[in-house]
């Protein structure tokens, strides 16, 4: 009578394999958390909502409509809502990316391929601007170039020179492009440096022996070989700049200068949700288009750019000769101006009783340690006494901790499945879905989760306003990175190590816990720290999902900045910056000691 399916039949073994079960579960979860929200976002834009009644008499909630798309793309509003911000996004994105690449690429060459002195400590200084929250740089820019014509107190520039800076220096395309470039050049630097490190200098020496001049070698050998890395760095940096929200908002909104990202926020603030979502979708499409174009370029040429690896790799440094010290001083000064000076400015500004008066009698610790005083800053007490801020600090740490731990563990499991089941098409699919969040500009990703979790659906309650939702989006946002870290770690663990345990009779769970986790731990813990710091300074991703009870330091800082309480905002951003810098320092030291250990093992 019974349908006799034996437990050890091939089919049942495939189904009962714990790794396959896990694979299916993870596919389901990721489908729900990555793809479904995107569909939800799209659906939202082509459906009449309740609030649309005040926009159009034709609105029938629940019916399909192109109204929102037409309003955004082809109506009297389009110019202000879409086209001007689109142009602004493209212009600031391209300018800042080009600057970031030129500066980052040049620095990468100096650090990796030349004998410039002081590399050891210049490298961490040069990555500072990327470590600190992006709008710290915007706040520092404001501190110097604020223009009272737009409102508020004069900045350092006007105080020192006596004349206000031109408005184009204070707000709009110029400062946004420059500050974006300042924030993202370390990102480009890291990408290009990675590529430069893989260049075998014997390729250049070969050309040198043929009698080629240095220019010819640079033009015909070095540059073509790093070109694909440059193209990829361009697209990745560009993709990041267009998703930036806080920085263009602070330096653009005062003069009605908008990018697509700030327009998403502005529309949501006005209750024009569907319009905001249309813009978010357009932002995602821009990002996809850029990635697609770069893949097409690199993909077509990928094979030829593969450098041949093998024994005898040699990376030799170019002697700068007489330029050694001038270049060092140039780079060190630059590092100070973009990495250290903004933080000093923020710190100084947070000590000023009345904003904009740069003399010593105006200095106070009030915004750090002062009690509530109705005369100052609307009665907000100093950041170290402020119950709101302490709550936000606790939230921040909790959020960063949980997100980092969960993202790393899930990332490791996904990585394990991807590496060990590489012939299974479902595993490859899992890999690809886990990468997709990388393509979503952060503010658009936030918008997706806003539509997805605003109300209860089936067994899933309305998560909007809960801490859980923040953890969820932070984890999913970190997944592309943590899977990558995990893949590197798991790949290094030979299959034999696990097979030895399997032969000894260990179950999969036991093998994963006793073999994979311990061996992958150093890489995964590093990844965890990176995620911790990354989540901590995140703003664009969660700004749309924050409610007063779930506020974190970055959003409180942003709100203070919006309200013009710059000292408090600066103090908060400075605190976050210090925590993230401390985190990076720990990572840097850990990395160093690990290198030492590896070296000892080799000898």
């Amino acid at each position, binding site marked *: 009578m019974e349908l006799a399916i034996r437990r050890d039949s091939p089919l049942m073994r495939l189904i009962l394999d714990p790794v396959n079960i896990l694979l299916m579960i993870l596919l389901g979860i990721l489908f729900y958390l990555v793809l479904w929200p995107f569909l939800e976002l799209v659906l939202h834009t082509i459906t009449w909502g309740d609030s649309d009644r005040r926009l159009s008499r034709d609105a029938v909630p629940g019916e399909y409509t192109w109204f929102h798309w037409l309003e955004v793309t082809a109506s009297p509003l389009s110019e202000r809502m879409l086209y001007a911000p689109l142009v602004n996004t493209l212009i600031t994105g391209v300018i800042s990316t080009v600057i970031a690449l030129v500066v980052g690429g040049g620095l990468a060459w100096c650090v990796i391929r030349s004998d410039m002195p002081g590399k050891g400590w210049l490298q961490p200084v040069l990555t500072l601007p990327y470590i600190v929250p992006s709008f710290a740089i915007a706040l520092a820019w404001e501190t110097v170039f604020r223009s009272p014509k737009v409102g508020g107190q004069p900045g350092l520039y006007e105080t020192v020179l006596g004349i206000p800076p031109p408005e184009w220096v204070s707000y709009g395309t110029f400062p946004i492009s420059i500050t974006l470039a300042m924030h993202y050049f370390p990102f480009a630097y890291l990408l290009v440096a990675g590529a430069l490190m893989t260049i075998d200098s*014997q390729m250049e*020496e070969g050309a*040198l*022996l*043929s009698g080629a001049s240095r220019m010819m070698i640079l033009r015909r050998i070095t540059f073509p070989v790093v070109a694909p890395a440059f193209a990829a760095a361009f697209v990745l940096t560009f993709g990041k700049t267009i998703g930036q929200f806080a920085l263009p908002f602070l330096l653009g909104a005062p003069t009605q200068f908008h990018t697509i990202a700030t327009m998403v926020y502005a529309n949501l603030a006005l209750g024009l949700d569907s319009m905001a979502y249309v813009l978010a979708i357009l932002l995602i499409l821009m990002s996809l288009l850029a990635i697609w174009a770069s893949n097409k370029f690199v993909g077509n040429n990928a094979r030829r750019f593969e450098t*041949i690896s093998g024994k*005898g790799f*040699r990376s*030799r440094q170019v002697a700068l000769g007489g330029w050694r010290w001038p270049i060092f001083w140039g780079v060190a000064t630059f590092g100070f101006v973009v990495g250290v000076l903004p933080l000093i400015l923020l710190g100084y500004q947070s000590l000023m009783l009345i904003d904009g008066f740069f003399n010593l009698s105006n200095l106070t610790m009030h915004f750090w340690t002062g009690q509530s005083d109705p005369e100052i800053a609307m009665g907000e007490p100093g950041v170290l006494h402020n119950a709101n801020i302490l709550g936000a600090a606790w939230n921040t740490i909790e959020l960063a901790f949980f997100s980092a731990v969960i993202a790393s563990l899930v990332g490791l499991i996904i990585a394990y499945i991807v590496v060990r089941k590489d012939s299974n098409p479902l595993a490859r699919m899992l890999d690809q879905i886990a990468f997709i969040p990388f393509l979503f500009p952060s503010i658009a990703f936030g918008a997706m989760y806003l539509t997805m979790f605003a109300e209860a659906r089936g067994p899933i309650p309305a998560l909007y306003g809960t801490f859980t939702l923040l953890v969820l989006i932070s984890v999913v946002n970190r997944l592309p990175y943590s899977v990558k870290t995990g893949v590197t770690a798991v790949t290094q663990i030979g299959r034999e190590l696990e097979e030895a345990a399997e032969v000894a009779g260990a179950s999969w769970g036991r093998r994963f816990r006793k073999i994979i986790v311990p061996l992958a731990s150093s890489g995964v813990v590093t990844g965890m720290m990176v995620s911790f710091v990354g989540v901590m300074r995140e703003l664009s991703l969660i700004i749309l999902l924050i409610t007063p009870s779930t506020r974190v330091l970055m959003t409180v800082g942003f709100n203070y900045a919006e309200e013009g309480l710059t000292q408090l905002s600066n103090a908060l951003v400075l605190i976050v910056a210090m925590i993230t810098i401390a985190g990076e320092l720990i990572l840097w030291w850990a990395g160093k000691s690990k290198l030492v250990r590896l070296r000892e093992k080799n000898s």
Partner: protein
Amino acid sequence: MASIEIENLTKRYGAMTALDNVSLKIESGEFLVLLGPSGCGKTTLLRCLAGLETPDEGEIYMDGELVFSSKLKRIVPPGKRNLGMVFQSYALWPHMTVRDNVKFGLDVLNLSESESKDRLDQVLKDLGMSDLQNRYPSELSGGQQQRVALARLLATKPPVFLMDEPLSNLDARLRMDMRVELKKFQAFTGSTTVYVTHDQTEAMTMSTRVVVMRDGQIQQVSPPSQLYKRPENTFVADFIGMPRINLIQANQSDGKNHLYSNGDIDIDIGWDEAPSSIVVGARPEDLKISKKELKGSQTYEVSSVLPNGPETIIQLTKGGTILLARIGHEIDVHEGEKVTVQFDQKALNVYDAKSGALLGPPIDTDRTN
């Protein structure tokens, strides 16, 4: 074709001395191999010849012309030294086709269009790469990549070839084939070749002379056969030869000045002029094994037998002394068996116990001839 002269070359990296006062004369048309363990300075020496490293002291002449002098501050740049180099990683340019890789050096020479094309086609044909000329390096096998590197070298017809472990990226079988090919290649072009390797078989089979280096110093410069027969110090004796040479530290036995002993075994070196404390070097094939008692022989126990095709290596034990011997098929021994051993006096080398320098063969074949 060109000769190369290296005089008192020294190169330091911080506190480390990579080349320590090296002098060497390389004849025109020679195939000279620089051999030594890793870190001995052989690659540094090659790169100094190429001009890719700048030595701290010394002179280099190529074809009689001074290309480097620390005193005169003369440094001829690599591109002007008229040489070609094959790198360990081949250093093929990944973004250029095979043809463009080979053509690069010709472009620099500013040849006429037709001459450049003719030479290119000829070189590609010589190396059997004509069919593959439009491929990219990543689409080639290791052996083919190697050939592109050679084609690139050959195209500009340099009188000096420098090769930095060119075969180390190939698998064992291909390496064997490429050795033969490289040797032919060199004979065909007649170019002076300096070749770096840490593989002694490669050095012995290909070279006209071998330079053994250690810690930045030259240990010995000899034709390969001489290197094997008469290593000039215990380092070279120990470094050359597989299985390794038996080095026996021994003292003069009382009264008889050609009899030496290490406590376990006695050796008659048949030479009266050696000092009282020496090291005797005996290659495994210089031990005559017999199951019979021979005059002047001693009894050993066979502790291990390792057959290896045409030959068998056996390990012999007597007291605390372990020796290796190489035997053919004429004698059949088993583990645990007792055999007698006789040293071939003519093949022995005697070294000073302190300095490790060769004192002389007991019976100098060079002298008696």
